[in-house]
């Protein structure tokens, strides 16, 4: 299903509760269409996600919002300001968490915050309370004078998120905020992002982690090859695209069960050595599987990952 395209003459929405409004955005690199005619609106106060495999065009879309990757065509309004012409004013009100760490290695933790404040024209001494609060938010009080290259990956991420809040932004843009972190570090980041959401900050994030999208996002778009495949809340997307339950069979001898699954009314998909059987009523098939000796299977409710795999296909992306 595609988004409803309004006619181009109408142009982007100027509703004050719509923070971002994009129409017919296109970005090409040579013959490669990184972003291929996409539309979306992001309401104030929500967490909006771009979910997609590598190379889907997520990062390019985020860079476009900030005027850092000028679009080839299409119109883009952020806070009602036209991008890229008024990108400076947009960035002054926005926080950015980049995909790769770009903390300043010549400075300590606190110096990083102070220096970053000056890029917004803020006097760090005048906002010292705010800087202390951000240091606590990042749980880095004890590392205030540490060089950034001595921090762990999770600490660096927390510092980068704190740094993105220095200008008290209305909206924070996060590009794969937890990629490469261990589970503990990811949970801390998620709790911090939820705090921000509760304070009313609009969050826009890209991710290819389903769990992250399900936990954080109120609304998300699934992107692939520069296009938006569908949009909705995680629950709505699951409801729309996949059956409520899935039985996952693992191991070498799954092939023989595909026919049986189909006979029981399941939709069957093979991914690697696993067989996925989607169904609304698993009872009879499960009874049959229980009788098979030495078979490993898992029965669970369907999730975003199933939607994602269905919409973007199961071929390998590099």
């Amino acid at each position, binding site marked *: 299903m595609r988004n409803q395209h309004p006619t181009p003459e109408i142009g982007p929405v100027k509703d004050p509760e719509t923070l971002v409004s994009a129409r017919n955005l296109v970005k090409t*690199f040579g013959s490669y269409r990184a972003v291929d005619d996409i539309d979306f609106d992001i309401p104030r106060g929500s967490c909006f996600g771009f979910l997609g495999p590598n190379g889907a065009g997520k990062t390019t879309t985020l860079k476009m919002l*900030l*005027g*850092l*990757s*000028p679009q080839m065509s299409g119109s883009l309004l952020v806070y009602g300001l036209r991008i*890229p*012409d008024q990108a*400076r*004013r947009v*960035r*002054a009100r926005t926080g*950015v968490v*980049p995909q*790769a*760490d*770009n*903390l*300043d*290695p*010549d*400075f300590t933790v606190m*110096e990083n915050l102070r*220096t*970053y404040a*000056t*890029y*917004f*024209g803020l006097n760090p001494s005048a906002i010292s309370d705010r800087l202390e609060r951000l240091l606590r938010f990042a749980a880095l009080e004890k590392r205030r004078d540490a060089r950034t290259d001595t921090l762990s990956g999770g600490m660096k991420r927390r510092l980068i998120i704190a740094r*993105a809040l220095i*200008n008290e932004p209305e909206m924070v843009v996060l590009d794969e905020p937890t990629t490469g972190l261990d589970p503990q570090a990811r949970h801390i980041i998620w709790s911090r992002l939820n705090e921000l959401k509760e304070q009313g900050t609009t969050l826009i994030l890209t991710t290819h982690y389903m769990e992250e999208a399900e936990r954080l996002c109120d609304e998300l778009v699934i992107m692939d090859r520069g296009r938006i495949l569908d949009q909705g809340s995680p629950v709505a997307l699951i409801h729309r695209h996949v059956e409520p339950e899935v039985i996952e069979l693992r191991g070498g001898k799954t092939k023989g069960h595909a026919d049986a699954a189909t006979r029981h009314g399941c939709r069957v998909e093979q991914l690697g050595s696993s067989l996925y059987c989607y169904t609304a009523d698993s009872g009879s098939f499960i009874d049959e599987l229980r009788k098979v000796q030495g078979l490993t299977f898992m029965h669970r409710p369907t999730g975003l990952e199933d939607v994602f795999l269905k919409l973007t296909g199961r071929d390998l992306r590099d």
Partner: protein
Amino acid sequence: MNLWRLPTIRIDAFAVWRRNIRVWKKLIGPAILMNFGEPILYLLGLGFGLGHFVGEMGGMPYLAFLASGIIASSAMTTATFEGMYSVYTRMDPQRTYEAMMATPLEVDDILAGEMIWCGTKSLFSGIAILAVASLLGVVDGWQALWVLPVVFLIGLCFAGMAMVMSAFATNYDFFNYYFVLAITPMFILSGVFYPVESLPALAQGAVQLLPLTHAVAMTRPLVAGGELTMPLLHIGVLLFYGALGFYTSVVLVRRRLLV
């Protein structure tokens, strides 16, 4: 968005300048050693050593001749190193510009700040050389302080061109071309070590195209005494190269980073 539009100069550039000076202050020991050590070596080694055989050059003691030229060439190399190695480091491996561009700062502000910072570092080097030269008794008088704004301008001039090289670079080795093809020839041919009048006639005309020739033509009379001829021409040439380098580097870095 038009990549070719003229750069906007804003006060925001000083945020970048202040960042750099804060880093410089943390490493002030080696920085000062570099500022004083190099000219002292040149002036003592070449000035006294070579000067012993040369005696006078251009109507002044060789040490005075050398000091008044080195102050220009040091401004050149200081700004060139900063505009290439440091700017490239912040632009590419260190991603400092990426972080800056997530704020209201634009490429225009970042490079303007870098350029002013390069000029400032040239100024530090000029102050050090002037101090050493005056201790060695080869500074003509208080009017020599006028050389300091000139040294700042020399720094801006060479910073612009160095940043163009940074915008093209994909690794540090690339800078060898610019050093071998531009900086070293200027260092040797532009009148730092001997008067350009001693070059063959054709070469004399050619070196007039080089910015360092005009830089030395300003610093020599200001530091060592003598008549300052055609100052507006020299300043004009330095401004021209600096402005062209700045504009070109802004366009190239926009093209490189705003993709």
